[in-house]
């Protein structure tokens, strides 16, 4: 079953902290999103494995845009 991790608000990707194939747990930091003048971690919502990373550093994203897909 795939799970999509979405951007909680518009912003800019400052860093991607995982790579495809990484095993991740709930509340792990996946991506750093710059928004509201702060650098905000986007957290993993469940245990799983990183299947696909849809963004890269310096990308601008919209609210609810898919950032990472987990399996």
């Amino acid at each position, binding site marked *: 079953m795939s799970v999509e991790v979405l951007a909680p608000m518009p912003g800019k990707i400052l860093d991607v902290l995982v790579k495809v194939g990484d095993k991740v747990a709930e509340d792990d930091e996946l991506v750093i999103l710059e928004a509201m003048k702060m*650098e*905000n971690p986007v957290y993993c919502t469940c245990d799983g494995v990183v299947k696909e990373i849809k963004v890269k550093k310096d990308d601008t994203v919209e609210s609810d845009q898919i950032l990472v897909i987990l399996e």
Partner: protein
Amino acid sequence: MKQYFAKMDDLGKPLKPAQIERMKENVAQIEAVMKTIDTETERVKNAGIPAAKVHERKQMTIWDRIEYLIDPGTFCPLHTLYNPLDNEEGMTGVIDGLARISGKWCVLIGFDNKVMAGAWIAGQADNNLRVTDMAKIMNLPLVWLVNCSGVKLTEQELVYANRRGNGTCFFRHAELEQMGVPILAGIYGTNPAGGGYQGISPTILLAHKDCNIAVGGGGIVSGMSPKGKFDEAGAEQIIEATKHYKEVPPGSVGVHYDHTGFFRAVYEKEAEVLDGLKQYMAEMPAYNPRFFRVAEPAEPKYPPAEIPSIISFNQKAGYDFDNILARLVDGSEHLEFRPGFGPEVYTGLVKVDGYLLGAIGNRMGLLPNYPEYTNEYTGIGGKLYRQGLIKMNEFVTQCGRDRVPIIWFQDTSGIDVGDTAEKAELLGLGQSLIYSIEQTKVPMMLVVLRKGTAAAHYVMGGPTANNHNAFTLGTATTEIYVMHGETASTASFSRRLVKEKESGRPLGPIIDKMNELAQEYHDKSRPFYCAKTGFVDEVVRFEAIRNYLVAFANGVYQNPRSICPQHHMMLPRLIRAEVVKGLDRPAKQ
């Protein structure tokens, strides 16, 4: 009430190896700042004449006296770097902090006899008043190591007069005594005039055999017949008088022990004065800790030394506040008050050394679908919104009712602004929090973890709460200012930019001014500056915060002015009423 306090809810999580690795540079940045603080602290410790010179005179320095006097490892220094008037001595001439002596906690302060023989120097008056305030707020004995040569005569206008001058200390001593707070003094050296009052104003005077306290000293006595000017004849008279009074200074033991009886006891050796203080401290009234403890003391489950791997030196990066609190409180346990409401703020009950404290702090991170009063923008941790302000008001009020002292943690960029925020009553709610604090009459302390900004720095238990904030700690990541420097520059120069642009003039000079102002804000908000000016009372390592919490908890519960029986407290019931755990309705018979 053990069902509430013996085992509270778990707080925090262990750190993952990847996070520890990622934060190594962060840890190094924090340590670099603390190294500069350490260097300044060493400078203060070595201020004045060399310790060796004092030892040659068979005397102890203030640092020797403190080390001998206190229970080892219990000294929590405060105001070490405080030098608000930037005097030439580089420090205020007194050393102070919280300490335990003979098993009892006190506020300890002493004159640095290496610095101008313990004179009144610029900035010292306010240092003394902060110390007397601590004794008042925490209801702790004040222990003075008196060794005071009086006013630094070449700068009398900076120390002598004024509503909050050095003399104010004597009225504070009388005020403390009116409140039943004793002041114990160990007296050394020559203490004329102002020094005389430093010696006479405490409650119990224990004297070294060579000390004196007097209305005036030899130098003052010989100058008592002013002629309008000085000349050779007058100078010769002064020399004779000074030689005589140097040998027999007024107010020595022969007068104030043998005749007036002001000195309760006299001791041959300097250390024996301190032994005398230890005996008196052992006899100070104090509740046995079991009277107020709600549980057995316990170390945090997670080590305080990990905090630099959690809190980011980069002010734009968030962190998990709960994980920091978990490393400061007993068992890494808590009872959170109103979780989910006012998510930008943490409020909850914690234990420190077995004692119950209220904890309040800013949570970091994005707050989607919040605040509830607008869709125009999204909430961000560090800012205060309506629910958070209401929650803090409620929690503080309940802490007052339950007589629970409070520790505040700040990392705030301010209260939400704009007409939307005004309609949400945030101006009134901010002042309401000030009112709530003011009506509690419980002791509080503050740790400015990172930012202390704008009115939020005031309302979240800031040092402006003169009657409640006992002391404020800063850290390597502390910065305190009315607003961020770039915001201030924009506010100050935006109209000028428009004018210059419209006039076709170059923007460069205005941009330079903006950068200068932003840099000035940066420089005047760093941890060392905050300690020097008194924005915070001490800058400490993150791992040392727990020591101050233990000192605070033990101090405020040693002899509190009022009591709420544990079984009459409402906070634990209010918290548990939201989530009733393990209390199923009894089965029908």
